[in-house]
């Protein structure tokens, strides 16, 4: 009996240590994110340092009008947009990987980003102007509608009888190619300056940020996060097999439906505001998984933090690559994301 209680104490300790380590890693990620945001705020073509910037925020009277504009219209919205978009895309990717049981699932690889690009391109080439929607809003709105529609198309596919997880992924890839083909066609017929707009839109960039967009995206993330975290235990069980989860009382269809709803809200809003930003939704969850493991109670927040951190770092890099120019951050994430992804694949091998 004594040895038994001792064993229980051992196992309990082991488990608690594991939880503590994961919580500690989450804290570390959070700290790293805060540091990245500060560096992101402090870097930019104008050369304004962090101290000057903080001083300017606390005492607006110390600043010239130009500096005010730099802080409130450039530095802050860009930095915060990078954080929110990274968080949204990575969380969406983590949920997608869980419900589709596929490590290659992400808003980018399953065509949500491409669909958004198509929606935006259509409105850029055939402008819709009404009294109550400005041209830019119409572009974002159309991108959102197309992105959300693509997720629901994926959803409808998953409900077809006999459509397994593999066919869903193949369908997503087909969606990527068809959307890209139509976008290419639009580029072919577009005039010179429309073409430039099209290309710029397909290269995701946080320079499209403004406070309205930030507000909407923050609201979406804030609303989705609690539901996402509440579904975490069921998602963990789903990772151990659909039949197992269902036989333990999880309504798998319902779980998938609401998860896809969250994914479409997160990824469609993010992509609609900043354009195509690839690999964050794929690489973020993978790095998080290496850090905290498969327990979705930790994996989902860790994915959100990792995604935010990655995009924040990419945003810093996008200002440093070419002095004086802000390179679209979508290019940076693709350049950095691909090698990271290849390393992940080789390091984890079949376990991925």
């Amino acid at each position, binding site marked *: 009996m004594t040895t*038994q209680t001792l*064993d*229980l104490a*051992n*196992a*309990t300790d*082991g*488990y608690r240590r*594991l939880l503590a380590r994961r919580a500690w890693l989450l804290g570390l990620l959070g700290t790293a994110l805060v540091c990245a945001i500060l560096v992101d705020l402090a870097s930019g073509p104008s050369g304004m340092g962090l101290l000057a910037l903080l001083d300017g925020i606390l005492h607006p009277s110390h600043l010239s009008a130009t500096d005010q504009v730099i802080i409130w219209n450039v530095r802050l919205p860009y930095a915060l947009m990078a954080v929110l978009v990274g968080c949204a895309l990575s969380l969406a990717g983590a949920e997608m990987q869980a419900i589709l049981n596929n490590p290659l699932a992400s808003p980018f690889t399953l065509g949500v980003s491409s669909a958004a690009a198509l929606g935006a391109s259509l409105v850029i080439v055939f402008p819709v102007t009404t009294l109550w929607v400005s041209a830019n809003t119409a572009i974002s709105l159309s991108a959102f509608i197309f992105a959300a529609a693509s997720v629901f198309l994926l959803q409808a596919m998953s409900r077809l*009888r006999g459509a397994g997880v593999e066919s869903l992924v193949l369908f997503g890839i087909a969606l990527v190619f068809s959307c890209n083909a139509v976008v290419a066609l639009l580029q072919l017929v577009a005039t010179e300056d429309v073409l430039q707009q099209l290309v710029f839109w397909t290269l995701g960039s946080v320079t499209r940020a403004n406070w309205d967009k930030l507000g909407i995206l923050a609201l979406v993330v804030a609303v989705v996060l609690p539901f996402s975290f509440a579904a975490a*235990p*069921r998602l*963990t*069980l789903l*990772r*151990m*097999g659909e*039949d*197992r*989860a*269902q*036989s*333990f*009382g*999880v*309504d798998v269809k319902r779980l998938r439906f609401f998860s896809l709803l969250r994914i479409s809200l997160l990824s469609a809003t993010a992509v609609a505001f900043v354009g195509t930003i690839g690999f964050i939704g794929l690489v973020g969850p993978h790095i998080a*998984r290496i850090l905290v*493991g*498969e*327990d979705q109670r930790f994996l989902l927040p860790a994915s959100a933090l990792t995604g935010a951190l990655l995009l924040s770092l990419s945003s810093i890099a996008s200002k440093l690559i070419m002095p004086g120019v802000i390179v679209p951050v979508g290019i940076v994430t693709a350049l950095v994301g691909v090698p990271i992804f290849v390393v992940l694949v080789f390091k984890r091998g*079949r*376990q*991925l």
Partner: protein
Amino acid sequence: MSEGLSVHNAQVSYGRRQIVHDLSLPTLPHGSLTALIGPNGAGKSTLLRAVAGLEKMQGVVRLGDLDLSAMSVAERARRVTYMPQNLPPGLSLSVMESVIAALRVANVEGIPLSSDACLREAFDALQRIGIAHLADQLLSTLSGGQRQLVSLAQLIARRPQVMLLDEPTSALDLNYQLKVMDCVRDLVREHNLIAVVVLHDINLAARFADHIAVLRQGRLYASGAADDVLNPLLFAEVYRVRARIERCSQHTVQVLVDGAF
């Protein structure tokens, strides 16, 4: 009303193809282990999944006075647990976490959800299976046999009345085939459970099962104790092989297969 698990007039179809035809099983009492055997495509796994509530079926599944087939997924899951063929490899979850996850996901009657209680229940389940020493290991570092035992621990932690196991031994080496089946039989005896196990290995079925149900082409071909059911005619008709049934020196039934027809 009779105690135990019974299946009446089960019919399961995939699209237009009917897999299980109007199949009834006699009442399987508490404390008994039943093996479902039969050739590939006989409908063993489909029947098991239907009883677990994973396939739509016509017919009635009763547990004592309760009509399981009329229950919701969550309601049924409190009494009946199902174990798929394997736990996916490569998950970085600790053994303890995976069992706690099985407890947390839906409330199991009589087990409070506080983290202390979950921990105790999970550890208790690991101990009953005899794998408490693996508690801190990651699933990705375990062998197939060890993962199968973890899978059993997940089931038993939920304190089910019925365990449905789909080919629990199919990918295992000899040692773990026996370990897993020993474990299942002990659980059935100790906790007065009803276990239904799909098995491919007839010698394992003869050795561990109290009751064998033989399926052929979606219908029940024979059912009863190993001694009564297993005979050369059955092997000829169901499996299309020539076979002898012998008793070895330790009095266990051994099926010796001489060749295919």
